[in-house]
């Protein structure tokens, strides 16, 4: 009798505690207060403020008059902005078009080599750990039009080199080359993980049906890794869209503005600070594109944070 009562009491106590545990006491949001305060201060308030700034006329960093959407109108109709948009699109899509196949191919090659491949893969990850300042400096030196080894090799093969990064015809392509070198390891790691999760039975099924390597890739590998390929592409699109440092180091937006992207333009306008309203409007545009890409990413992966 008393044992039954004790059990019942213990059960009641446990359920009370579980309820308290689930609700987190009286003020569960207090646990979020520090991080929310930090994000409000550093991210949310400046975000609201840049939207506010973009609706004003400015002189240096002073807001002088409210002008509504005039800055956006000026920006979207200017030829400079059109060129910059084109550069951004070329840079983002150009980099992705190369980095995905290179990274995927690297993953397949290293995966096929067992233990040795795993060791080599660790080595191949090195570029991704380096900062954009370091990667930019190394490639600036590799591509030096007078002394660089890349220039030397190209000249030996009688490929025209021009001024390399100083040449409006080649600059963006060479920045993309450095971008691919730096970020293909990220694709490689993601694709390795995806490849290892493909069920072996599917390959065996293709074997039974008499399919070769191409059929295996086309009908098993590709469909299986497509979701991961998509989310990797989105992550990198966001990264490339907002990337500045590599361009600062390699070209400074030149020559003749051929490597000036939206983000680089915002950086330059911030540090020169002549008239920041157009830069504020451009910031809002980058922000909106970024949020759209981020939202697609979340829909695709169900991941709660980028």
């Amino acid at each position, binding site marked *: 009798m008393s044992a039954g009562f004790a059990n019942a009491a213990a059960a009641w*106590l446990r359920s009370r505690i*579980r309820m308290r*545990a*689930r609700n*987190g006491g009286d003020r*569960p949001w207090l*646990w979020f207060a520090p*991080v*929310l305060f*930090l*994000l409000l201060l550093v*991210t*949310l308030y*400046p975000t609201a*403020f*840049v939207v506010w*700034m973009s609706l004003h006329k400015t002189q240096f*960093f002073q807001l002088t008059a409210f002008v509504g959407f005039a800055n956006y109108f000026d920006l979207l109709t200017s030829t400079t902005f059109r060129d910059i948009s084109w550069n951004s699109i070329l840079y983002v899509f150009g980099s992705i078009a190369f980095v995905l196949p290179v990274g995927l191919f690297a993953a*397949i090659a*290293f995966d*096929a*080599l067992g233990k040795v*491949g795993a060791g*080599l893969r660790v*080595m*191949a990850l*090195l570029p991704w*750990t*380096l*900062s*954009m*300042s370091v990667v930019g*400096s*190394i490639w*600036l*030196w*590799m591509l*030096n039009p007078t*002394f*660089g080894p890349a220039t030397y090799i190209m000249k030996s093969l009688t490929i025209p080199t021009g001024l390399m990064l100083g040449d409006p015809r080649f600059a963006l392509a060479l920045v993309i080359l450095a971008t691919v*070198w730096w970020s293909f*390891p*990220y694709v490689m*790691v993601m694709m390795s993980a995806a490849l290892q999760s493909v069920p072996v039975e599917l390959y065996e099924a293709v074997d039974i049906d008499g399919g070769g390597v191409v059929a295996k890739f086309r009908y098993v590998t590709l469909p299986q890794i497509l979701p991961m390929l998509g*989310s990797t592409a989105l992550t990198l699109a*966001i990264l490339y*869209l907002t990337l500045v*440092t590599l361009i600062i180091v390699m070209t400074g937006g030149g020559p003749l503005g051929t490597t000036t992207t939206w983000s680089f333009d*915002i950086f330059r*306008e911030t540090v020169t600070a002549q008239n920041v309203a157009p830069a*504020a409007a451009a*910031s*809002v545009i980058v922000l909106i594109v*970024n*949020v759209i890409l*981020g939202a697609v990413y979340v829909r695709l*992966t169900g991941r*709660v*944070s*980028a």
Partner: protein
Amino acid sequence: MTIAAQQSMRMRLPAWLSAAAFVLFVAGPLVWALSTSLKTEVKAVAFPPVILPDPLTFQAYIDVFTHKTFAIELFNSVLYATGSVVVALLVGLPAGYAAARFHFRGKNFLMLTILATSMVPGVALLVPTYYLLDSLGLLNNEFVIIVISAARLAPQTVWFVQNFVATVPVEIDEAALVDGATRPQILVRLILPLIRPGIAAIAVLGMITTWNDYITVAVFAPDTLKRTLQVALVNQVFDAVGISWSYTMAFSIVASIPVVLIFLFAQKWFVAGLTAGTVKG
């Protein structure tokens, strides 16, 4: 040789060749940087380029380490990297714990707010943040750099901590509550030791992120005494005429040694951190 072995050989040869090509692609620029850093300033700009330094000299490294601002730049890099990780963990641990353990009205809204902030790119906040810091007289302030860098790491920290805490059985918390422990005690004394490997992974990724960052420091703390190794490196490259390539390459390597070492020691966590939760389960 069996047919299977023959087949695997045939498969492996292209794999070996491609792997070799990738190793060359990755190692080429790194070897060139290392080689240049071991040359004299004059030999570094020989054409055609020579891969082996002759004479081999550590002069560029000596110059880097004895430069008058090197110590302060190194100190700032370490300060910002560790400071931002500490602040991100201080604010991220309670939130991540609460996100994993408590269920209350408005939690989804809080988590969505944190998610939304992670989608705001740093570059879009350059203009307003510069304006605000300038008007408050807070440019060139170490603490401000730490706080801004910590805010970049915070959403990811919350998310990671939430996932790590979720792997710990909730019965552990309940048993401790029965014994009269408070929630903060449970987090610090019970949960934290259990999720230590995860915390180490967050710390490693966060430190590398802040260490490698150029923009935040370059724009908000350009002062010589507040800048980092990354900023100092880029400033050398800007000086197109006075640049010494052996010095710049030595500087690049020195500025990368800490992240490369962290990476080599913690590469399992590094890879786990990259791939964690990227595909819908």
